[in-house]
Structure formats: structure tokens, C-alpha cells
């Protein structure tokens, strides 16, 4: 990950004094800064276990559990996290459910970045009535309870993972548009952009070669923050019954099913909660750490 040149120049002045005046060894090596590497390491581990581990190790199936193995407690032989109310291995449902969470988070961020980011940047760069119209549309989305929109979209398309991604994009597109617009507005009148414009560079080339690299730190850190938020929201949507349908495993619908047995088997809620929390803490910490490092405010 290369830090754009213009950003390096401004970093020194934009780092909040609280950080700069704090601990002295600020200029440690990239790898030695635990605040980024530890959460990144945990995330890589989680991704490995969710996506690759089931391919190389015979993990039990997340669906079609046997009646003999219903509601086994934690640390049962063969079922490290026990089994749920229909005898499915919870460990396996966590792994397959994690796939869903990560895929949804990635999909929603990608759509938000592509649609919202482009819209925000282009409208800030163009300015004029296009920008004014977009701002009003963004205001509408800001005043609109996005959860209603997400529920409605997912309800009208029917329950499936892809449709949850579309529904949650109702959150990410306006958010990315705002961030990208704010970032592009700051850059628009910078000397290097003006110089490029005066020498006859086409608008799309200025945006691609001059704006995008300088907006990247802001957008990337926001992507991580947004990924955490998306995972949380996906859990909420599942919980309300408008997300990933059973029997497909997802952390959110595991929590929703666990609610019915909460006084007898709290583990059914606790285990997916721990994984959800761990993932989101790691994403937030990475976002924080990178923001401090890149001097993004």
C-alpha cells in the first residue's frame, strides 16, 4: 500500500497534536505498530478459517444436523462450540456464517465505493446544478430512515444474500457519496489539479489520476469502518427476519434463533456475538490505526 505523495506532505501538519505530542516512538516500522498489525492478523485468521479451512479440513456441514446431537454444550467432543436446537455444529455455522458476513461487507463496500464514490467525486468536481441536485438527493437519504429502505428492498427482492447486499447498499451509497464529495471539494482547487486542468487534461483523467489517489486514504479507512457497520447492520436485518433466510447460516440469524432459547442456552447467542464483535472491533481498530498513520481527519 503506497501512501500518495501529496498526502505524505500534508501528514505532518494534519496529525492531531494529541498524537504528535504523545508517545515519542511514533516513527516505528510498519510491522511493529501493533494497533494495525494485530487486528489485521486476526482478520486474516478469521478469513482463512471461514473461506479456506472448510476446504482442507472435514468440517461438519452447517445444515442437516442429526437429532441425536441437539443442544450439546460448549466443548463437546467433535463439536467445539456445541450444537444448536436442530443439531447443527455451531463451529461450522460460525465458519459458513462468517463467509456470508464477509461477502456482504465486501459487496456493500464495493457497491458503495463504485457508485457513491464516483457520484460524489464527479459531482464535487463538476459543481453547478449537478452538485446541487445530488446534495438534495443526499439530504433525502440522510433524513430517510435507511433501515426502512433496507427492509423494503430486501422484502421486495426476497430473502437472499445478494439481495441483502443490494438492501444494505442503501446505507453505503449515500455515505460514500458524502465522503467522496467532501474529499473532492478540498482537492478541486488545489494547485496541482488546477495545473492539470490548465494544461488541458480531460476531466475523467484528472479525476482518475489526480483526485482518486489523493482521496484513497480517506475512502479506504472509511471502507473499513463501513465494513464493520455493514456486518452489524446485516446482523440487525437478519434479526428482524429480512436478511439471510434459514437454514443458511449467518451470524445474525444464529443470534435471532438463539433468542428463542435465551434463558436455557445462552451460548447460542453468545458464540456468534463474540465473533461478530471480534470482527467489527478489528475492522474499527484498523480503520483508526490507518487513519492516524495517514493523517486522515
Amino acid at each position, binding site marked *: 500500500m503506497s501512501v500518495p505523495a501529496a498526502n505524505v506532505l500534508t501528514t505532518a501538519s494534519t496529525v492531531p497534536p494529541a498524537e504528535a505530542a504523545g508517545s515519542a516512538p511514533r516513527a516505528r516500522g510498519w510491522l511493529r505498530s501493533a494497533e494495525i498489525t494485530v487486528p489485521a492478523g486476526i482478520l486474516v485468521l478469521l478469513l482463512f478459517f471461514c473461506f479456506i479451512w472448510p476446504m482442507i479440513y472435514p468440517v461438519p456441514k452447517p445444515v442437516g444436523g442429526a437429532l441425536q446431537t441437539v443442544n450439546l454444550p460448549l466443548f463437546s467432543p467433535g463439536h467445539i462450540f456445541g450444537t444448536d436446537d436442530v443439531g447443527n455444529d455451531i463451529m461450522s455455522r460460525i465458519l459458513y456464517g462468517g463467509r456470508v458476513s464477509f461477502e456482504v461487507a465486501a459487496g456493500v463496500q464495493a457497491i458503495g465505493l463504485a457508485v457513491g464514490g464516483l457520484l460524489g467525486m464527479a459531482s464535487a468536481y463538476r459543481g453547478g446544478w449537478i452538485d446541487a441536485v445530488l446534495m438534495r438527493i443526499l439530504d433525502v437519504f440522510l433524513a430517510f430512515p435507511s433501515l426502512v429502505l433496507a427492509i423494503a428492498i430486501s422484502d421486495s427482492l426476497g430473502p437472499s444474500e445478494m439481495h441483502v447486499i443490494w438492501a444494505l447498499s442503501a446505507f453505503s451509497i449515500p455515505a460514500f457519496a458524502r465522503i467522496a464529495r467532501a474529499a473532492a471539494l478540498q482537492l478541486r482547487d488545489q494547485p496541482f489539479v488546477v495545473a492539470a486542468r490548465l494544461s488541458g487534461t480531460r476531466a475523467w483523467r484528472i479525476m482518475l489520476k489526480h483526485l482518486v489517489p489523493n482521496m484513497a486514504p480517506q475512502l479506504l479507512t472509511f471502507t473499513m469502518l463501513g465494513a464493520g457497520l455493514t456486518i452489524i447492520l446485516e446482523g440487525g436485518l437478519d434479526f428482524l427476519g429480512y436478511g439471510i433466510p434459514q437454514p443458511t447460516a449467518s451470524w445474525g440469524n444464529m443470534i435471532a434463533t438463539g433468542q428463542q432459547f*435465551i434463558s436455557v442456552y445462552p451460548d447460542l447467542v453468545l458464540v456468534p456475538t463474540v465473533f461478530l464483535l471480534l470482527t467489527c472491533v478489528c475492522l474499527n481498530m484498523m480503520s483508526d490505526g490507518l487513519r492516524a498513520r495517514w493523517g486522515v481527519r
Partner: protein
Amino acid sequence: MRRLTRSPALRVSGRRLLTAIPVLWGVTALSFLVMNALPGDAASAILGLDATKAEIRAFSVKLHLNEPIWTRYWHWFAGVVTGNLGTSLSSPQSVASVLGARLPVTLELVIYAMIITLVVSIPVSILCARWPRGVIDRLSLVLSMGSISIAAPSLALLAVIVFAVKWAIFPAIGYVGLSQSLAGNLHTMTLPSIVLAVPLIGFYIRFLRADLLEQMQAEDYIVTARAKGVTEWRILIRHALRNSFIGLLTIVGLNLATLIGVTVIVESVFSLPGVGFELLDAISNRNIPVIEGIVLVFGIAVVLANLVTDLLYGALDPRIRHVRSRS
């Protein structure tokens, strides 16, 4: 009259209210469109699976569902302008009376949660800023990171496991009206409000701590106050905190829209008869007038919150009274 039109606060609020109208119109039009795109309709959803085709048809005609979407939207819109929100499709009640019954619950939830948030986060962030990198600071940073990373259903269920199942301090579900008994009401509302407040507390502590620390290390007025021999506590509370209130206010205004979303989940977990609960019901019944009414109220709440925020800016900081007419 001339004096009045010159008043910046009035001018700002007037302009904000004017720009709010197209926004609110957009919100209702958007929700009308989205709701009409849903498969299934109110008639079959309300009558259930046993209804015959003829019955559904007759009921649709009665509810005006057979008319084109623009006609229906126009009817609804004309009603709203004259102060009539329409009638619920699933019951003979008017939308206004449905909202009147549901809104106080949600409003109390949000206000209670906001009070808890401010009461906890302001003192904690002062303690953090007083001894940065101290025990309290580190502990609260870890906890606030956790609190902003937890999903609302998880948090609500954890709260139920600990405070309702294990210790039985608060009831897991149920609601007692404020008019019935104050103690009973607080008993049922405390746990949901705490659940609503926890992520906000984390968010506010992170913001306030960073803002206070930044001021304490760089600003001239802090250096001046220190030079005069003002105690650190007094500087923090009287000089730094007062300045942080402006930023805090912006966040409170912005949070309101998010908070409204979370109330849907919290009300569903704790079975509180609030707007969120009604909303879920209305969505599954395709009860468009009720959905429209709720969305409109939410929209107005967000727009008003932003307006009040803007006006309070001027009250808190005279410097932005004239400059900050638009943002």
C-alpha cells in the same frame, strides 16, 4: 417586521425550513415508490390466505388500491397538506391516532437513552482527558471500541441474559405506560434505553476525549489559563469542555437518524409498543398510509433536529452566528 427579517436566527431557520420542504417531499415520494414496488398488496396481506379472489378485489377497491400509484400518492399528499394523514388499512384507526399512541414510547426511549449517554460520556471523557494514557483512559478506550462494534440485537440479548435472566433486575419484555405508573415505566424502559445508549456512549467518549485533548495541548486560551494559575480541572471543564459542546451538538443531531433505526431493533427485542414495532407490522401488512406517516414523522424529526442544532450553534458561539448561515 423589518427588525424581524434582519434577525439572523430567524433568517437561518426560515431558509432551513424552506429547504426542508423538498427534502421531506422526497422522503415521502421515495417511500411511496419503494413500498409500491413490494410484491403483494395490503388487501391480500390483511385478509390472509383464505380470502377468495373476489373478496380481495372488493377490498382493494375499498382501499383504493386499484387506482394508479400517482393518483394514490396525490390523494395522500393532498391529505397531508391539509393535515390529514389518512386511515390505516388494517384497522379503522386514523394514522394520526396510531402515531399518537406509538410515538410517546419511542420518544421516551430516545430521550432517556440520550440522557444516559450524556450523563455517562461527559464525565468519563473529562476523566480520560485529565489523565491521558492513564488507567481510566485506556480502559474506557477499550470499552468504547467494544461498544461501537457490537450489533444492537447482540447487545440487547446480552442485556437480557445478564439483567433479566441471570439477575432478574429488569423485565425482559413488556411495557408500562408513563401515565400508569412512573416507577413501572422506568422499570421497563431502563434496559432498552441502556441498550440504545451503549453504542452512543462509546462514540461520544471517543469524540469528546479526542476533542478535549486536542484543545488541552495546543490552544492559546488553555495556555493563557494555565499561565494564570487556573487549576487543570477548571480549565478542562470551564474552558475546554464548553468549546467541545459545539462539536458534540453536531454529532447529537446527526445521530438522531441512526438512533431511529436502532429503536426498531430494540423495540422488537423488548416488545415495546413504539413506532418501530408498528413499522415492522406495517411493512409486513403493506400498510402504506401508516408507513408513510412514520417515515414522514422520522423525516421531520431529523430535519428539525438539524435545524435546532444550527440555531444552537449561534447561541453557543456568537462567532458563527452570522457566518454559518448555510452548511
